């Protein structure tokens, strides 16, 4: 019996791309093939040369349809089968394959905010909810909103075979987090994009919008980040490699900040558990540092580091690729 393949791709919308998708019916026993779409409707091509190519790069079971149906994450290519300028996965793959011997691995903590009727889910029509404090990892009626979506999303990720590690409510009302990892690149990006797509798709059924905006509400409200945990074979064996990686990130701080998501300077203010985007710092257990060494890692003298700068709206292919280039490049010297 033929099956449904939901082709998913990343478009060319700026400053932050959107996810797009369409369904193809595939014959039983066949793998999904290349496909095409109208790039002029996705900010990826002019109208007179509108065709773009979809090349399947990652597949998993579709947890929202029937058994046998699949999700198909795709690279966008030009019609000469070279990567489209908006295709950031190609950069990530090149970096990962270049430093494969170092076994770089990632775990990403994806924060996001639910919106409804133009304001965060659960917020009053006029004014504000009670100040931050009870929401982080909270429980109880009236203050915890959107949990039914979180539960459905987690179940869907598990059914799809994604490496979801957990979920929790975040500091601002209507804000939540899920974690994906520990995975090599580019799979960390593949699974993160699919998990984001599932979240958008499931929230659709609840009449709720998912925002990955870095600072969804101005003022004394936490922003939304995507803390990125990173290790290599060497960091898992000794502390010197962790120090080398941190120092390399410091030397390239400006380039990383520029590529870590739109609106990052509004989020990395130095307040709300962030370090200022202008001042790179790293340290053990310090949630006010750009890069944090977890206390257990410092004690064990081996493990991983947490780059706390990436925005919630970051591109995981770009962040993973840049961390590999910077850290593995330094470790290879």
């Amino acid at each position, binding site marked *: 019996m033929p099956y449904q393949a939901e082709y998913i791709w990343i478009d060319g919308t700026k400053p932050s791309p959107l996810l797009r998708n369409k369904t*193809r019916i595939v014959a039983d*026993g*066949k*793998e999904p*093939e*290349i*496909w*095409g779409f109208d790039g002029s409707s996705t900010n990826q091509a002019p109208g007179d040369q509108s*065709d773009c*190519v*979809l090349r*399947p*790069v*990652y*597949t998993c079971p579709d947890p929202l349809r029937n058994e046998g149906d699949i999700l198909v994450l795709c690279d966008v290519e030009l*019609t000469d*089968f070279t990567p489209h300028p908006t295709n950031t996965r*190609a950069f990530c*793959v*090149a970096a*990962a*394959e*270049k*430093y*494969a*011997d170092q*076994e770089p691995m990632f775990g990403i903590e994806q924060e996001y905010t639910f919106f409804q009727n133009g304001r965060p889910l659960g917020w009053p029509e006029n004014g504000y909810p009670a100040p931050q404090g009870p929401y982080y990892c909270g429980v109880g009626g009236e203050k915890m909103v959107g949990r039914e979506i979180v539960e459905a999303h987690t179940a869907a990720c598990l059914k799809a075979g994604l490496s979801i590690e957990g979920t929790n409510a975040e500091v601002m009302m209507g804000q939540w987090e899920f974690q994906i990892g520990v995975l*090599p690149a*580019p799979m960390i990006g*593949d699974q993160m994009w699919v998990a984001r797509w599932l979240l958008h798709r499931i929230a659709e059924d609840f009449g709720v919008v998912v925002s990955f905006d870095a600072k969804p509400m101005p003022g004394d409200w936490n922003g939304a980040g995507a803390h990125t945990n990173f290790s290599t074979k060497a960091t898992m064996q000794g502390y010197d490699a962790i120090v080398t990686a941190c120092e390399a990130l410091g030397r390239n701080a400006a380039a990383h900040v520029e590529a870590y998501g739109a609106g990052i300077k509004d989020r990395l203010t130095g307040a709300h558990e962030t370090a200022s985007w202008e001042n790179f710092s790293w340290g053990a257990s310090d949630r006010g540092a750009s890069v944090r060494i977890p206390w257990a890692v410092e004690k064990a003298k081996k493990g991983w580091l947490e780059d706390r700068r990436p925005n919630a709206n970051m591109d995981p292919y770009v962040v993973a690729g840049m961390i590999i280039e910077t850290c593995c490049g330094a470790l290879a010297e």
Partner: protein
Amino acid sequence: MASVTITFNPDLEGDIEEARSILDRLSERSAATSVSPEVVREKIIALLRGYGEKRTEYIRQVALAAPGRAAFADLTAVVGSAKAIGGTHSAIERAWRAKGMSTTFISTDPSGNARMEPHLATMVLEVLHDQVDEPDPLRSARF
């Protein structure tokens, strides 16, 4: 009934590897014949999905060398460094097994030279041509 005699010195690492390689190949040939070529072709398409230039070219070099072995030096030139060869090879083998294949995709000898079964290599080269080098544009042109 056929009988096979393998003579080797158990104290010599090279002898052991050679004997193991022969037994692996005999067992793979038997396992491979139980999977239809159409299924193997689809598994190859799935394996190559998402790989970048280095892994794709590593696989191509080994397939091109069949029935012989691709030299370690040539593979190093493709992947970029001798250190990266091990990670590349093990990642490809893990992915092949994860797709439900019980056979070895690429086998290596103690010197790092790599080999692929000739019938598999033929299919790999066909898939590389059809999917990577010169995909049929009409496949992408539906709706």
